[in-house]
């Protein structure tokens, strides 16, 4: 009898040891949540980073809004967002000051379904704004024709398609339209949801692309990476310098290179309508959101180390997944900015 009890006890403790071992092997070192747009590159980074350092990062792509909420409630170690946090959201964060770290960039492209075109459409920002505001309704409108000489444009209605779900893509697009058009800025503004005056709403990039493909005469906006991977046609958009620029990784990085990072370390900057003749104007960064005061020493150190790795090695992988890497001038500034993070009340720079 005693023997059986003892053997059961041994078996139990062995099982406990075993499960303990398994648990620690599967344990996650950092957790994050947020934007869906950069999820493909983030998951590549996390797996590459885990391979080289053994540190595991669990990221849930629940949307930028969810990421901001979870960071504010301190249920995750870092957040991620396609649109910068508003001052009100920053004030509501329970862990103190939140820093924005740009990671990669993307662009929003105008895709369309016009049968019989012989080359990509050229569009200026005010045309796009007026189409989405319902002021231009025909494909052969004089203003569209003026920018597309020699292109056979049909005498048919423009069927506008926009996102129905709240999304960073809509934020980037409306941010650009607000920058280019004063009337857009004052009436409709920028945000993840817009009260669209015209058009049909479709859910997700795939929804918008699906509607545009299905309906001749339609026009919509989707992410550059999605349009590239699915072979959609997209328009050249006129930039500040007056050039019609084809959206591409190079032209998005050029847009960022034209911008200067502010000295006050508030990196919530828009690169919409950026200067420079090669800049594609509907470009934006996406951010990782990190508390300036990291209370957990181990986690804080790992997080800073990961960001350092992103700026040193991770950026090189961005283009392979159709994201634009940050320009190298910006990387140096960001590396030094990492030193402003305080881990358990000591500066990163001082700890080294």
């Amino acid at each position, binding site marked *: 009898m005693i023997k059986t009890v003892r053997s059961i006890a041994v078996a139990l403790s062995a099982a406990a040891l075993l499960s303990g071992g398994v648990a620690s092997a599967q344990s996650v070192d950092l957790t994050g949540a947020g934007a869906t747009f950069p999820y493909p590159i983030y998951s590549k980074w996390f797996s590459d980073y885990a391979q080289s350092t053994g540190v595991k990062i669990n990221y849930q792509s629940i949307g930028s*809004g969810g990421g*901001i909420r979870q960071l504010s409630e301190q249920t995750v170690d870092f957040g991620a967002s396609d649109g910068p946090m508003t001052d009100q959201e920053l004030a509501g964060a329970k862990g103190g000051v939140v820093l924005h770290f740009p990671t990669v960039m993307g662009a929003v492209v105008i895709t369309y379904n016009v049968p019989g075109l012989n080359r990509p459409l050229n569009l200026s920002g005010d045309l796009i704004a007026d189409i989405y505001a319902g002021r231009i309704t025909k494909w052969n409108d004089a203003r569209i024709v003026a920018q597309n000489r020699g292109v056979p444009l049909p005498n048919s209605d423009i069927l506008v398609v926009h996102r*129905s779900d*709240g999304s960073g893509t809509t934020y980037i697009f409306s941010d650009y339209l607000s920058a280019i058009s004063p009337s857009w800025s004052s009436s409709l503004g920028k*945000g993840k949801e817009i009260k669209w005056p015209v058009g049909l*709403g*479709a859910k997700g990039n795939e*929804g918008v692309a699906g509607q545009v493909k*299905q309906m001749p005469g339609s026009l919509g906006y989707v992410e550059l990476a999605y349009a590239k991977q699915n072979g959609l046609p997209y328009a050249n958009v006129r930039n500040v310098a007056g050039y019609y620029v084809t959206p591409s990784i190079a032209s998005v990085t050029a847009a960022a290179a034209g911008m200067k990072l502010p000295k006050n370390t508030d990196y919530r900057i828009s690169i919409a309508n950026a200067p420079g003749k090669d800049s594609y104007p509907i470009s934006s960064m996406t951010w990782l959101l990190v508390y300036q005061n990291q209370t957990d020493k181990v986690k804080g150190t790992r997080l800073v180390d990961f960001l350092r790795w992103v700026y040193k090695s991770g950026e090189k992988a961005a283009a392979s997944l159709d994201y634009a890497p940050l320009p190298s001038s910006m990387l140096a500034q960001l590396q030094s900015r990492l030193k402003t993070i305080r881990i358990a009340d000591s500066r990163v720079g001082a700890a080294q």
Partner: protein
Amino acid sequence: MTSLPVDWLENDRRKLRVDASAYGDKIYEALTAACALAIPALVIAIAVAIFAAAWPAFAKLGFSIVTTSDWDVRAGHFGAAPAIFGTLVSSTVALIIATPLAIGVAIFLSEFAPLWLRQPIGFLVDLLAAIPSVVYGLWGIFVLIPLLREHVMPFLRDTLHLGATPFFSGPAYGPSMLAAGVILAIMALPYISSVSREVLMAVPRSQREAALALGATRWEMIRDAVIPYARSGIIGGIMLGLGRALGETMAVTMVIGNRPEISASLLAPGYTMASLIANEFSEATSDLHLSALMAVGAVLFIITLIVNAVARWLVWSVGRRRTQ
């Protein structure tokens, strides 16, 4: 005495109960009672959670959530009237299309179909209920909407001259209230037809034979003897289908066009409450926006509750009329 064995049996059963299974019965009773009570408790818990989360929006905006139609997140205006309208209209359209079709299927299967055909058709109709709604949505975008846009809508509007009425006027883009209604009809159909078929099959043989013996034709027999008998069950099935249509989210979002406007035309795009919540919830950050979405959920909850209550009442009153 002849009754002795029965008494003896009764006594014995009582004895058995006391002796052996008294505790077993008690435990069994308690267990099933717990299961039965868990469901109402869950419904109440869900209702409390939704209304608690919706309260800030109701407190700040009052009934303007239900009565106004300006949904502008940036300006802080949350009027969900178009979504409420869209939910009710798309579900009504769905029932108008699905009910006759489903009852026709049920009557054919229970009254006319040869045995070898009954099984496969019944199985295929039931299978419609097992298709995930995102698949219906994709089918809607790639098959149904082009079909509606190219053929059905021009036919309704121009060939039948229904365009003269407000209900079929305006341009036909494809994504529309009509498309949502058709998709919902297909999704609600198996529920209605499945319940109706079971109810029709449960009508006693004697009912049919009596009608035929009185010289009724087959059609008269079905109309006057079978359907009245099964009416309350069929209404129950229709209400089950309506419940399905009211709450459906994914497929509707993919085909309705997501335009928060009230339009009389079925060819125009619309919005539903479930679509509104699904579209905006994941990216909602402001407290009022979140709360307003919860308030829309609360309204949907109340509407579903009302529909179920009406269904109960219909089933009950029809059943009472028959027994009188």
